[in-house]
């Protein structure tokens, strides 16, 4: 007997995703490259344009994208499942809503179970875009997302200008491409900042170009190292985040990158 075919989640997950126009995974190789900020800001920017947007934080051990949007609380139970919390038009689901500040020491198969449950039970309703914030690396969370979100999906690969970050991102990019995920391109974060009118590039340059060349994908653009965006994220002030240079630059990149996917 095939137990996976008798698992209620194998029925529920495809139904949930049938209601979602496009799923954008945000991945990287290294941690600390600004993936969660980019994920949360992407959902926020698109929602501000009238797109029905959701944000799913699959960084089980270090969830932060809900905090960036200043979303706290516990999801309510509805007839069709768990109702995501909402901020400025973005529906948000995160393990943080359940575990609060407690650690989530779940490994291997347990992570897959947890992700299956979250995907099966979350009632997003109809969405045009679901942004999935993946943790660094190529572990269970990424593999589960690839397995369980099989259609109308794509991925943005985030790196800093550091050669080390790009080298690790290459592995993630290779896996995604091998698993037939549409890698929309490379997004360079923390590219430069202005000091006394001069542009400073603290992490060098050229690694994102090299990464996109090696993966044969587009370089989608470069995002500034913006202390105002960082502060808005720390404070959980999405309305401030939307007004930053970082958000302005990301908004332009998303215009070009997601126009086809979002119709």
């Amino acid at each position, binding site marked *: *007997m*095939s*137990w996976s*075919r*008798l*698992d*209620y*989640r*194998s*029925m*529920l997950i495809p139904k949930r995703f049938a209601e979602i126009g496009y799923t954008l995974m945000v991945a990287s190789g290294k941690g600390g490259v600004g993936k969660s900020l980019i994920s949360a800001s992407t959902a926020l920017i698109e929602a501000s344009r009238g797109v029905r947007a959701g944000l799913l934080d699959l960084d089980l051990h270090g969830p932060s994208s809900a905090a960036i949007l200043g979303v706290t609380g*516990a999801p309510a*139970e509805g*007839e*069709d*499942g*768990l109702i995501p919390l909402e901020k400025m038009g973005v529906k948000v689901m995160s*393990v943080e809503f*359940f*575990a609060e500040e*407690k*650690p*989530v*020491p*779940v*490994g291997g*198969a*347990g*992570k897959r*179970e*947890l992700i299956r*449950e*979250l995907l*099966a*039970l979350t*009632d997003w309703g109809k969405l045009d875009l679901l942004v999935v914030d993946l943790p660094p690396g190529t572990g269970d969370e990424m593999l589960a997302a690839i397995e369980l979100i099989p259609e109308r999906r794509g991925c943005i690969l985030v790196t800093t200008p550091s050669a080390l970050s790009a080298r690790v991102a290459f592995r993630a990019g290779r896996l995604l491409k091998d698993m037939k995920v549409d890698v929309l391109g490379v997004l360079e974060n923390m590219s430069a900042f202005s000091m006394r009118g001069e542009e400073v590039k603290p992490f060098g340059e050229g690694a994102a170009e090299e990464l996109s060349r090696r993966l044969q994908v587009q370089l989608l653009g470069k995002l500034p190292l913006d202390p105002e965006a960082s502060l808005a994220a720390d404070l959980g002030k999405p309305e401030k985040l939307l007004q930053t240079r970082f958000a302005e630059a990301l908004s332009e990149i998303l215009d070009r990158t997601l126009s086809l996917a979002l119709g």
Partner: protein
Amino acid sequence: MHELVIVSGIIEAVSNYAKQEGGRVVRFKVAVGELASFSIELIRELLRNLVKGTELEEAEFSVEAEKAEVRCLSCGATLGFSELIEPLPEDEREMIHFLPELVSSFSKCPRCGGRDFVIESGRSVRVVEVELE
């Protein structure tokens, strides 16, 4: 009440399975894991109501409790509901009710203090037997 969604998913999964196998379901058995603290009576009641008008309407079904067994990978102890869930306050049990893997966030192994758990059985609701004809 996410039990409603889970039971709907179970009915659909069993119906789909029978369709794929080209049979009719005579009987099926559902196990309700202790860890998620579902009410067995509620699951039974939901099944009774939701099978009406489906291919499973004539099928017999049973709903039974499944003991929670959680292995601590640090010391090898096998732990049960009374050690892990019973001592917790209601709000924490509620979180495990939604996501059983969070038992490691809220409970520690009473033997060694570890939190490196693997759920061996009694996780949530699952179909354990389907008889077709």
